[in-house]
């Protein structure tokens, strides 16, 4: 199958390691991947702020760049949701696009990717992955196969971390309060790591942890799956 990588702009710029980890895992599964270098951004920041006319050209561009692939895989629940669930609102038919965990479990039928990560981790359900893409068990099925990994659930796993893109910029105090509630829930699990399918959430959560609870680290699902 012709598989393309969709690496969101902030993963490309801020967390390249997440994209690299995803490629590592896909290659371990003997999949050939391509990275169309013309890609830039899916358009979500403009779309979410109400600027649908600014998002539409980027959606059209995305559809053109990724035309012809059997699947497009991305290490981001929110960007995948933008493409799959919201591009139709812009009048653009999306290419078949999948979040990474979703691709592994639902498209390839794979839950064991040969990973080893002996640590206690807790999983944060990013909102778009959970509610737009309906992913809940898939990341957990993957984590269950990681050797040495102990998964503990936090009581507020499904509660929003408070990032929400421009929301964190426009309403920083509310964003901070939500972050604090999330981090308290994480702390109660006594996990060493909090893991998620969305790096934007991990950035938000990491910001609070770094300042208040540096013993707990953030890590993307892709990086855990790439670890051996």
């Amino acid at each position, binding site marked *: 199958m012709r598989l393309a990588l969709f690496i969101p702009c902030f993963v490309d*710029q801020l967390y*390249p390691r997440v994209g690299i980890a995803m490629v590592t895992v896909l290659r371990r599964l003997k999949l050939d991947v391509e990275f169309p270098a013309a890609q830039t951004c899916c358009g979500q920041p403009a779309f979410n702020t109400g600027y649908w006319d600014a998002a539409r050209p980027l959606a059209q561009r995305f559809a053109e760049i990724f035309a012809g692939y059997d699947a497009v895989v991305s290490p981001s629940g929110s960007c995948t949701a933008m493409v799959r669930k919201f591009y139709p609102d812009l009048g653009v038919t999306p290419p078949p696009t999948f979040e990474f965990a979703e691709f592994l479990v639902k498209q390839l039928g794979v839950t064991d990717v040969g990973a080893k990560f002996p640590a206690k981790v807790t999983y944060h359900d990013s909102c778009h992955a959970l509610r737009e893409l309906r992913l809940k068990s898939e990341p957990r099925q993957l984590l269950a196969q990681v050797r040495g990994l102990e998964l503990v659930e936090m009581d507020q796993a499904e509660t929003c971390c408070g990032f929400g893109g421009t929301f964190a910029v426009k309403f920083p105090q509310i964003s901070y309060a939500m972050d604090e509630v999330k981090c308290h829930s994480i702390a109660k699990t006594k996990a060493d790591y909090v893991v998620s399918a969305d790096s934007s959430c991990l950035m938000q959560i990491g910001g609070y942890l770094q300042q208040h609870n540096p013993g707990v680290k953030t890590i993307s699902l892709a990086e855990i799956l790439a670890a051996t």
Partner: protein
Amino acid sequence: MSASSQFLDAARQKAGDLRHRAVIQKAIGAYDAKVAEGKARFTDWQNARAIAAGRKWDAINHLDRYLEQFERTVIANGGQVHWAEDSAQARQIVLDLARQRGVRKVVKSKSMVTEEIHLNDALEGAGIHTVETDLGEYICQIRGEPPYHIVTPVMHLTKGDIAQTFHDKLGTPLTDSAEELTMIARARLRQEFVTADMGITGANFLVADTGMIAITENEGNARLSFSLPRIHVAITGLEKIIPRFEDLALLWPLLSTSGTGQSLTVYNSLVSGPRPGGEFHVILLDNGRTRLLADAEQRDALHCIRCGACLNVCPVYKNIGGHSYGTTYQGPIGSVITPHLRGTQEWSHLSYASSLCGACTDVCPVKIDLHHHLLHNRRNAVRQQFDNPLQRLAFRLWLWTMQSPGRYRLAGKFAALAGHLGFKPPRHFPMPTGATFRQWWAREQTHGGPASPGGPSVPARPGPSTSARGDARTTGHGGES
């Protein structure tokens, strides 16, 4: 001060108020536990929601037909129906009726619509003594505050706060007992029920085919309000209509389960006429609801049964509280409908005060597409040019940048430069370092082997001394930058 600046101030203050946060978390924690029990009584909760959504869709999309049927049946049963286009007309209908009947005292049961039209002020202004009889609303009235939550009006107050309020305003001794406080209110309000000339209630549902209003409550104050005074006036939004009496068999348990977790609320009453020797009036209020109806994309917001579930699940609401919204309807439903009811320009900010997490849409018993409507409101605000012109310009510039990989890469380099020069983003967020995924990919393609930019090589290993993640700036293991 604009509604938007007031909101920002209030939200900022409340978000940092840890006492408030603790009180609300405790209350909603109790609610969550009860609701989980309540949902377990359904064999198929998701399908129950789907059935209810279908019934309300039928009601709202044939609203004229059902309202006319309701009016006919109420009149046939001996009641009167009044139509009010806006708050002023609704208030006037009540005032005229009160004046014509020589009403000196009114008892009220809980009704968000009466809050919406500011009825109490109008009645008091006309010299009519108006008493809230729902315990939570009574406390709000004594404190001179609006209700904090559409179902639990004083969720934000502790026992101590309420005891202090009663002590200050009613002269009662301070007590630590919720029971004693409730009995204080019960004794005082009993007198009011018995001597009132008019009882004003809301309505949870309007049953079109039998001409009944349905009132749901736990306390019994609504029953007393429509049973004892001579005149019963029910003021209601016109969207409360349901097609058939039989629809109540599902809507009542859905409302009670989502509202409080109860299998059924203690009193579900159906009033179809006056008490012997009395009068029964129903006032149907528009006040912007027909504007929402005309927006076919968001029309389902009129399905709302005012259960409060979306408020209780919303992480924004839980941190800023009901008063911060500065308008009658709070939480996600309030943020969705208020621009339609009160103006897009002044009230779109509520639609932006959301991370679009979607928890509200998941819990709504009638499946309103709440969080997507927040997006729609944002789009509408931009289309009508109510946005900040600087923001509009910023996104034009942003679009221009993103339409070219070259410009995008350049922007990334500028940001990396700013970071190296010491520019610090808020909240410990990282800055780009200049080492990007596409650089790694390009190098790997040309050199034919994996290389890692500025950090320990993937795969990561867990352990206390390894920052398996960290922000890209602090790892600094050499490599390209």
